[in-house]
């Protein structure tokens, strides 16, 4: 009983030891800049990934700054990027997304900020003996499934991007077609009216064309 509690506690403590990861999708309005901050301990392997899902030319400016405002990673007008880093100093790291170069397109941005490794299941990792075949196989399966979920996320983002573009195109085709038909009607009727006007009897003039 006592040992059970200890195991759980150790598990939660390990969980606390700076392992966190969050995926967010948010809308960045035009001419706006959004920043996210995270306190990271030194030596905690972290990674940042972003992707522009919809909007304008599918590009955004990204800047990752360290505690002393030093620039660790910077991309201008990129659609997709990934950066892994291990901080050398403990402090507040900030990642800023800027859409200030765009005048009217707001962008949907996906960001994945992982700090530290994934928290282990309670009980795992406290062995003083090597893991059994069963345990190591199940760990391998877990890691593989993590990759599958990760690939699914990327696939979903790409599919969302293509789908929104296709829906956009569908709408635009309709507008274009209606507009062009109206244009043809206006021009043909206009032509006839202008031509008739050339041949119109002016007051006191004889039509002699």
């Amino acid at each position, binding site marked *: 009983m006592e040992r059970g509690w200890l195991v759980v506690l150790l598990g939660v403590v390990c969980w606390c030891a700076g392992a966190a990861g969050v995926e967010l999708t948010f809308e960045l309005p035009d001419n706006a800049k959004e920043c996210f901050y*995270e306190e990271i301990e030194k030596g905690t392997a972290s990674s940042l990934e972003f992707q522009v899902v919809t909007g304008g030319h599918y590009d955004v400016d990204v800047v990752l700054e360290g505690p002393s405002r030093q620039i660790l990673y910077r991309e201008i007008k990129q659609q997709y990027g990934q950066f892994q880093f291990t901080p050398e100093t403990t402090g507040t790291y900030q990642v800023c997304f800027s859409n200030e170069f765009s005048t009217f397109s707001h962008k949907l941005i996906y960001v994945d900020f992982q700090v530290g490794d994934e928290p282990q299941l309670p009980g795992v990792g406290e062995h003083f003996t090597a893991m059994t075949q069963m*345990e190591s196989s199940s760990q391998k399966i877990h890691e593989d499934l993590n990759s599958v979920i990760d690939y*699914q996320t990327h696939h979903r983002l790409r599919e969302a991007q293509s789908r929104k573009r296709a829906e956009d195109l*569908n709408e635009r085709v*309709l507008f274009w077609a209606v507009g062009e038909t109206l244009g043809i009607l206006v021009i043909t009727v206009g032509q006839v009216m202008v031509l*008739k006007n050339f*041949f119109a009897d002016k007051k006191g003039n004889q039509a002699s064309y």
Partner: protein
Amino acid sequence: MMGRVLMIFLSLCVLSVVEGLYFHIGETERKCFIEEIPDETMVTANYKLQLYDPRTGGYMPSNAGLGMHVEVKDPEDNMLLSRVYSSEGRFTFTSHTPGEHVICLFSNSTKWFSGSMLRVHFDIQVGEHAIDYASMAQKEKLTELQLRVRQLLDQVDQITKEQNYQRYREERFRQTSESTSRQVLWWAVGQVVVLLAMGWWQMRHLRKFFEAKKLV
């Protein structure tokens, strides 16, 4: 004695874990996040609200009774969750339809404009990441291997749901593309017809006009 110390340490740790990612918003501003999830997926979010204290120049836990209003809308714009929570805590919801869910956060400040800055710590977990295995192991008295198998089952469950959702989305995408293709074809044919019809009408109209003018 050791147990007690560990307990205290543990509770301190649990509190500090919410100190994950944070961002700043104005007191009257709204911040929305979008989660595209399959149906029957649980989403859990931990948050903490802090108010800017001009005296210290830092962010202090709000003692002005500032709460966090959370609004969750499902893909059909129905309100799944709309509640005011305290300045620190967590909320959970489960999706019933697949698609884009919008989670909006704003403080329940009564100010009409400006106000001070707020720091919001936010940690959102979806699907199998939202499940707390530590408490599950404790409650159901599972061994390590049993817990691991449970975790694998949850992961595979999530993968299956996502694949189903993917199939539904791909069908929508295919329908949109086919509709565009059909529209382009019909409009091309239609416009040629309109052009021919208008050309014919023009000739007929003008001929009548010139005949009336005795020029033809």
